């Protein structure tokens, strides 16, 4: 018979419990009612801060569509539990419904603790626990203004980092004499303070918060500290610890622990045998845990009891933590403070490098008890599983970076590799061999290891290698080779078409991954116009129509404006073309002009006008050179030391049309003031008194990177030669859609290796790379002019093959600020027709 389980709280642990139960309850014994006070289904609270760093609420969501559609689970969002009535076995919800239960689980988590200092409830005070809290902070943040975080623990530092991401100047107030007092020791705290101080956090350690003061408008105006100082601010975030949400317990006659929390035994059971508590609200034998891993272990214990499975006792929890804040690694694991009898500390500190490591060992120095790593925590993944075990190598060797230290083979089979999800080495190696897994994603899906904090992922890779699984470079289901391997095959064999390549070296027909990748390689090697013959069908639509597709199916047209320099006459032509074809016109971020809203059939007419006026394609559509941005330089600027405009134009004309694994951007600045933002480009050039500095590997985008210096004080010819080599080396060896920064990072030896190959010619291929670039430059031809000259190619630029002049009825425009923009999309109802299979057969 089906019984009813009511779960109060849909946070990380409540969700895990239901997900786990549903995965194991093959007989559908339990129907589940979940009461969720928050308006969203469970999300990854551990990853909360990434919400301010580009992730969306959807990215963080833990509940997949299968979970939400499960008929055995009912999730009531925005509906809390108000009271538990144990006599009638019902829960009263905040919207007045009564839900009967056979079993009840409290998973209500914690609430942030706000110390009762005067002014703590003023407008402008925030906490840091939910997505709503973060929305509030985002709204209140003012870039450039100071913000104060009260509490210098793990969460306090996360909150400070969040303020930094919002452009604020964060202050951190911590009562203890060091940051992260719970996780790191004094030595580690000092290194940590130095590192985060360098990054612009103002620290106030060893001082209390006396009061929050209000301004004349009644909102927060400042924070008064115990040392007599005041920090002026309009935004305060409290991060002074959490308190378990146990408020449902007492009215229901359930015991609370002395220091708060719903009191449970090591089976997570309250004094009522039908009621359990899990996660942060549960006090197991009186002790609460503020981490997700112990919560997941509790969920597992309860699911086993609900389904009468073995092994239902809460294991000794792992309270290890690792954190990367402001680029600073901090990890603490096991008995970090060396509280065990006779424990020995082995400390390695390097103040110059800003790294600190302490290992806590048993009295005979053989068994690892715990440790603290600050500044560089790369050894964490290897060390943590050894806690409580004998070390396989001397302690200092264990601190060497992954790959050079002892390998995972030394790790005992039952060691826990993923402590968040309690997954052992043998669980993982068993899954790899048993399920024939070939990558980290497979291991994650199959074992859950690596799906929470992610710190064990390096170890998962090591274990894959240990099981004999070479990392897969396969491009897609049609090619087992990587892009760089295909490049070498095509270069060496002279294969000139996709069908020949897939016939000899792949399988199937290809797809939207391998076709454009191969098209790009063929183009890099100069094997014809990109729309020649079969190649046309390989191109992404942008390349196929030599323009960028927009949301309504029209295209944008971006002519090249080398270095951003343009004559008044050409500017007038652009204006006239835009006016005549009614194109939306906008200055891009790349120092040129974009004309939007062109229908397919208009493209050749537009190009005709542009080409006649001396324009050519700007390759805004291609994985190719985009722009070389320039500043004004010596010609006009009073600070310039080199002619940045002339150099930018020279570079842009030299590399235009070069097809690459991803787009390429460049910039040239006339002096160190860097007005062209060259260091945010794939290759950037900055003038010096003595010539040019060349920087490589920069980009904006999702993960911004500053380009790093490759070579300094080059003359014009030296500069060109190095850029030639650098770009060709990238074109040959990078992965599909890998920009230069990610490519450099992926190379063994990183930038040093690039320097060896490109500057020192360590592989002896420099001459070959230069020759390949000479071929590219000699073979360049404008792609637009190429289409205009070829009736076969032109014939594809029609709205409809059977009605070449009929405008596409799905396209419409409305006016905004005096220009067109796409009209509202009316999604047509899919027409339902009898299937046509027999006619097709």
């Amino acid at each position, binding site marked *: 018979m089906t019984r009813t389980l009511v779960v109060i709280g849909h946070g990380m642990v409540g969700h895990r419990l239901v997900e786990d139960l549903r995965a194991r309850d093959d007989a559908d014994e339990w129907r589940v009612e979940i009461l969720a006070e928050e308006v969203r289904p469970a999300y990854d609270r551990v990853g909360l801060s990434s919400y301010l760093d580009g992730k969306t609420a959807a990215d963080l969501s833990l509940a997949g569509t299968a979970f939400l559609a499960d008929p055995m689970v009912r999730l009531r969002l925005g509906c809390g539990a108000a009271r538990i009535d144990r006599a009638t076995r019902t829960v009263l919800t905040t919207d007045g419904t009564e839900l009967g239960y056979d079993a009840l689980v409290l998973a209500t988590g914690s609430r942030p603790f706000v110390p009762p200092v005067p002014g703590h409830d003023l407008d402008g005070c925030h906490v840091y626990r939910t997505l709503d809290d973060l929305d509030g902070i985002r709204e209140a943040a003012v870039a450039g203004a100071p913000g104060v975080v009260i509490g210098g623990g793990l969460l306090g530092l996360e909150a400070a980092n969040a303020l930094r991401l919002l452009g604020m100047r964060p202050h951190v107030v911590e009562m203890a004499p060091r940051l992260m007092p719970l996780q790191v020791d004094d030595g580690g705290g000092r290194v940590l303070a130095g590192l985060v101080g360098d990054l612009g956090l103002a620290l106030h350690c060893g001082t209390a918060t006396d009061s929050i003061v209000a301004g004349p408008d009644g909102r927060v105006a400042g924070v008064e500290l115990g040392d007599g100082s005041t920090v002026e601010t309009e935004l305060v975030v409290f991060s002074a610890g959490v308190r378990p949400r146990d408020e449902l317990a007492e009215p229901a006659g359930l015991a609370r622990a002395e220091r708060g929390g719903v009191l449970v035994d090591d089976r997570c059971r309250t004094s009522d045998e039908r009621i359990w508590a899990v996660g942060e609200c549960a006090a197991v034998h009186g002790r609460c845990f503020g981490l997700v891993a112990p919560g997941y272990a509790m969920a597992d214990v309860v699911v086993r009891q609900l389904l009468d499975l073995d092994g239902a006792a809460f294991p000794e929890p792992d309270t290890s933590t690792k954190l990367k804040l402001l680029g600073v690694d901090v990890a603490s694991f096991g008995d970090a403070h060396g509280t065990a009898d006779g424990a020995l500390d082995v400390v390695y500190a390097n103040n110059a490098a800003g790294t600190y490591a302490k290992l806590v060992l048993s009295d005979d120095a053989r068994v690892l008890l715990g440790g603290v790593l600050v500044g560089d925590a790369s050894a964490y993944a290897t060390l943590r599983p050894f806690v409580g075990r004998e070390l396989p190598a001397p302690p200092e060797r264990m601190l060497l970076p992954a790959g050079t230290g002892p390998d995972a083979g030394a790790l005992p089979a039952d060691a826990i590799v993923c402590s968040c999800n309690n997954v052992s080495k043998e669980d993982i190696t068993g899954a790899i061999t048993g399920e024939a897994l070939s990558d980290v994603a497979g291991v994650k899906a199959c074992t859950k290891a690596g799906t929470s904090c992610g710190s064990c992922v390096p170890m998962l890779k090591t274990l894959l290698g240990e099981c004999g699984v070479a990392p897969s470079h396969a491009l897609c*289901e*049609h090619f087992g080779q990587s892009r760089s391997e295909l490049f070498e095959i095509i270069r060496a064999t002279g294969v000139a078409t996709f*069908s020949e390549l897939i016939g000899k070296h792949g399988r*199937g*027909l*290809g*797809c*939207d991954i*391998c*076709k*454009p990748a191969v098209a790009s390689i063929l183009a890099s090697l100069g094997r014809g116009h990109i729309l020649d013959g*079969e190649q*046309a*069908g*390989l191109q*992404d*639509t*942008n390349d*196929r*129509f030599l323009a960028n*597709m927009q*949301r*309504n*199916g029209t295209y944008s047209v971006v002519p090249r404006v080398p270095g951003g320099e343009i004559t008044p006459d050409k500017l007038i032509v652009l204006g006239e073309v835009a006016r005549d074809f009614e194109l939306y016109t906008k200055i891009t971020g790349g120092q040129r002009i974009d004309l939007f809203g062109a229908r397919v059939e208009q493209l050749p007419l537009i190009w005709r006008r542009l080409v006649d006026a001396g324009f050519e394609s700007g390759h805004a559509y291609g994985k190719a050179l985009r722009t070389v941005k320039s500043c004004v330089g010596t010609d006009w600027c009073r600070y310039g030391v080199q002619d940045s405009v002339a150099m930018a134009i020279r570079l842009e004309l030299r590399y235009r049309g070069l097809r690459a694994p991803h787009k390429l951007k460049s910039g040239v600045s006339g002096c160190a003031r860097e007005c062209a933002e060259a260091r945010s480009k794939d290759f950037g050039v900055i003038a010096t008194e003595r010539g040019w500095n060349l920087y490589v590997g920069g980009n904006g985008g999702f993960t911004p990177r500053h380009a790093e210096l490759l070579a300094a004080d080059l003359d014009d010819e030296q500069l060109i030669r190095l850029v030639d080599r650098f770009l060709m080396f990238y074109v040959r060896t990078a992965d599909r859609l890998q920009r230069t920064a990610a490519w450099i990072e992926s190379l063994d030896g990183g930038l040093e290796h690039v320097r060896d190959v490109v500057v020192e010619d360590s592989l002896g291929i420099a001459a070959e790379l230069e020759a390949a670039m000479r071929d590219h430059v000699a073979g360049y031809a404008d792609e637009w002019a190429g289409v205009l000259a070829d009736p076969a190619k032109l*014939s*594809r630029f*029609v*709205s*409809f*093959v*059977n*009605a070449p002049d*009929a405008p*596409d*009825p*799905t*396209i419409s425009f409305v006016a905004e600020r005096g220009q067109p923009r796409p009209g509202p*999309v*009316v*999604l*047509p109802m*899919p*027409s*339902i*027709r009898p*299937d*046509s*299979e027999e*006619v*097709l057969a």
Partner: protein
Amino acid sequence: MTTWLPICPWTALAPACGVPALLAAEPVALFRTHDDELYAVGNVDPFCGAGVMSRGIVGDRAGEPTVASPMLKQVFSLRTGECLDDPAARLPTFPVRRHDEMVEIAVP
């Protein structure tokens, strides 16, 4: 009774490339695969409402002939019109044939 509407000469179709065509009621994307099979599906991408399917890349997924929307890259079966990345979405399909040197689509 089915009426076959002539759309274009066979030679207007390149292998593994789509072309757009206009029926009275709606735009259609017409494909000739590498082995000269013909398929016709709706040209309007159900995820964004733009008439772009004919400009997608033709290929296969585990042997099933497919086209990927050029807009947000969802992959559809050319045979059934079903979206292989989201079974809730599908493209209408149309009977299509080669008749002498013309390609024809059946209209109800």
